[in-house]
């Protein structure tokens, strides 16, 4: 029973939250990687665009709630996802038209694109706050738990408990579905193939008759959908607050770079590594080891590598190490 208790404890406090968080990061990192490989710049407005899309979903959710529409036990926000996607894709295409298209025409250097996206980030940030304010908005409804700690203890008779929140389960399942669909799209459809061709070699793609503006529009559309999904899942799980979305920028970039910029598989693997590293390094392992070690050898310290405050430092460290020793990332992506 003792090893089982250890497993349950670590699953409850670390594995489940890290897996959900990793799935949210993965969807965001996929967007970064797509924009980087096709539009060829680091999209700094990613986090705040995600917040704006989520804000649209929240608006849709509240509207549906006032109409009394619900898909209990699932959260209403899932129903509002398409609306949020439409709004965000519209927004992304407008910014592309107003800002990025000009720099594409004059063939500006990537750094100029990055600075332009920084400007877009501030504007987007302001728009979101204008509508949502800066404080927390909770929009989760429906059933909160698949099973709670108390249910689990009663059912198994173990000393340790484990909970699985619906939002976490939905996050993991949705992320998996989205990833599968995305890979199918990139590998099997004509548009997906033209995107990959454009990413591999712009000139060759142009010669073979691929319309670059169409590729750009498709890229923004996919990014928009990924962002709204990721943002909504994050918001369902942890509550919506614009500043938290801005803070997601660092782990999302770390994930994309760690996996290899331009590699979709890399973005997903990178995201899970970042999430598990953040949680694992700052997790206090004492309880787990107390179960595993023979009697008399229980640890007296907290068995914690870094205090919880240093969660972001872990991400930073990963980023620095990757850029120093393997700038192409795990899956041999492009160099930033």
């Amino acid at each position, binding site marked *: 029973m003792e090893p089982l208790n250890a497993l349950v404890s670590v699953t409850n*406090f670390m594995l489940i*939250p890290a897996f959900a968080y990793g799935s949210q990061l993965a969807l965001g990192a996929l967007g970064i990687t797509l924009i980087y490989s096709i539009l060829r710049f680091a999209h700094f407005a990613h986090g705040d665009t995600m917040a704006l899309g989520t804000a649209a979903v929240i608006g849709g959710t509240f509207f549906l709630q006032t109409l009394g529409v619900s898909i209990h036990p699932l959260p209403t926000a899932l129903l509002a996802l398409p609306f949020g996607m439409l709004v965000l894709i519209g927004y992304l295409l407008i910014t592309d038209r107003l800002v990025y298209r000009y720099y594409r025409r004059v063939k500006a250097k990537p750094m100029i694109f990055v600075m332009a996206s920084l400007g877009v980030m501030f504007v987007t940030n302001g728009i979101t706050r204008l509508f949502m304010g800066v404080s927390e908005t909770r929009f989760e409804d429906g059933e909160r738990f698949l099973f*709670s700690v108390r249910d689990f203890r009663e059912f198994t008779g173990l000393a340790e408990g484990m909970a699985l929140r619906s939002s976490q389960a939905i996050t993991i399942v949705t992320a998996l579905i989205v990833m599968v669909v995305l890979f199918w799209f990139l590998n099997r459809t004509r548009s997906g193939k033209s995107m990959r061709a454009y990413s591999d070699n712009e000139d060759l793609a142009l010669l073979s008759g691929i319309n670059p503006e169409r590729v750009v529009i498709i890229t923004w559309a996919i990014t928009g959908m990924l962002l709204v999904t990721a943002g909504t899942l994050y918001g369902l799980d*942890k509550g919506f*607050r614009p500043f938290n979305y801005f803070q997601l920028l660092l782990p999302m970039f770390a994930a994309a770079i760690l996996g290899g910029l331009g590699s979709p598989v890399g973005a997903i693997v990178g995201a899970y590594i970042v999430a598990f590293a953040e949680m694992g390094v700052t*997790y*206090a392992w004492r309880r787990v080891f107390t179960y595993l070690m023979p009697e008399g050898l229980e640890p007296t310290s907290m068995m914690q590598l870094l205090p*919880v405050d240093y969660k972001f430092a872990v991400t930073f460290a990963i980023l620095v190490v990757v850029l120093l020793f393997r700038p192409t990332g795990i899956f041999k992506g492009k160099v930033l």
Partner: protein
Amino acid sequence: MKKLLLASTALAFSAGAAFADEIKMGVLLGFTGPIESVTPFMADSAELAWKEISDSGLFLGGSTITPVRADSTCVDSSAAQAAAERMISSDGVVAIMGADCSGVTMAVLQNVAMSAGVPMISPSATSPAFTTTESNGLFYRTSPSDARQGEVMASVLMERGIDNVAVSYVNVDYGAGFADAFVSSFEALGGTVTARVPHEDGRGDYSAEVGTLAAAGGDALVILGYTDGGGSVLRTAYELGAFDQFAMGDGMFGDELVASVGEALEGTIGTIPWAAGDGTEAFSALAQAAGINSESSFTRESYDAAALLALAAQAAGEATPEGIAANILNVANAPGEEILPGDLARGLQILADGGEINYIGATNVELVGPGEAAGFYREYVVEGGEFVTVQFH
């Protein structure tokens, strides 16, 4: 034209000094910034006390008090200092009712009030740091230090047989000071603190913090934070099954917590500064008659702070900064005739006749240590989504 202006200003000043019938006192509160929603009521309450005193006709031979308002912003120390500077040098206030938030209050005290020698009574600065700061007898407060609440909370838990706890505090001056006070009192009473984990307010996810607290274990989790982050910590800890029993400080008190945390809150123990008794009721009636929301935060403390400044001037027989500073403790504490809100005229008369008063006011004022409220706390427990009073400390 310029000369005319100068001359008239000089005349105005000399006139004020010669007849001494209009005394200026400052109200330095954060009319803009994070606590802008409560400061108007605080200022109204303070001015209510001064109006009562002016209207009585007994204050220093019929003098009146004119309030001078300025904005402390609650967070911007340089703005608060500039406002205090202006109050003292151009408006000529003899004392300041304020400031509000601990940070700006400390800045104004050390950089402006102490060099100018002007006394301040803050209605709402609760940082333990003021207890140990040397103010040359210029700083007083009608709100208790958070250190005092730490002691109260430690004894409440021990009385309930909870002697092994984990502590999570919000990582700002308030939380850190409160946690220090609680941990030292709790350990002095024989309790064990298994872990002290800070949390940042306004994060989305606290599962890492809760994981650490769970690894440390304990009979209860003591959360010294704000409704927002502290509430999320509490809910996360309950949902992950890390703790079943919680205790919380005053920053967490509020109906919105019941709404956001729900059943996890059931059975939670808490403490909060409270006011009850004749003085409190007298103030409520007075405020209601004047159309002021008396239930808003720190209104009672503001009324008391303002009343103390005026009564101290009366006791000194002159409205000077030195005279007021020297007499605040005399009028606030025993011995003497007890004075309640609405009863200030009687206090002025007694002081004018050379007697002594013990100002009770709206918050049972009792200034201890270097001149801060001893504090009166309500111990409550959450039952069925309601905050149910257990007893007062």
